[in-house]
């Protein structure tokens, strides 16, 4: 999907990375970052919400814990097959 760009109605979709499924940024009638779930030969595309950790943190107005915070919180826990 390198360089991929599609115009849908009044929305322009720009590819912003190449990890599958790709993340696309939509501007226009619909705005935001989405996952490209399907892309058919006839041009039909299916978008879903961005479920990356970065997007989740943004929606929660949060940041990942630091290594020090993680060790203080879970340093006592066993590691292994959950």
């Amino acid at each position, binding site marked *: 999907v390198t360089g991929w760009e599609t115009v849908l109605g009044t929305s322009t979709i720009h590819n912003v990375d190449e990890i599958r499924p790709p993340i696309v940024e939509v501007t226009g009638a619909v705005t935001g970052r989405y996952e490209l779930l399907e892309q058919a030969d006839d041009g039909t595309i299916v978008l879903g919400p961005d479920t990356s950790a970065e997007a989740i943190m943004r929606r929660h107005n949060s940041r990942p814990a630091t290594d020090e915070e*993680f060790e203080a919180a879970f340093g006592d826990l066993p590691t*292994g097959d959950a």
Partner: protein
Amino acid sequence: MSRAQPPVWRVRFDLSAWDADLRAASAAARQHAERWRLRVQIAGGIPHAELKRTRAEDDGGVNLPGCVKIRIPDPFDEDPRNSPWGAVLLLARDETGLYLAFLAFGLRHPDPAGRLPSVYQRAHRRLQRRADS
């Protein structure tokens, strides 16, 4: 247990990720997952003792820094060790303090012949996006 460890960890569920994982799951898995989420909400979170750390990196290249994992118990089998389902949660901080952010739900060890990613692979992909995007 230090001051950084509450007996029950607050959990926030991102419904976009939650819905995506449940859409990919079987009907039985969805039922287990919804019951577990309801139980977490009623309890106000997940007990510290039910959590486990993730390995630094497994043979498949899955790397889940900052994450813990938990088995999703089968309501018909009280021993959670028998459950094929699990969840991965990311330790995060919001305006009120540390909490666990739901990151992924799914099979812990899916049939290698199938094409379903494990819950750890799902979580890994979501974490990598954070690093690469």
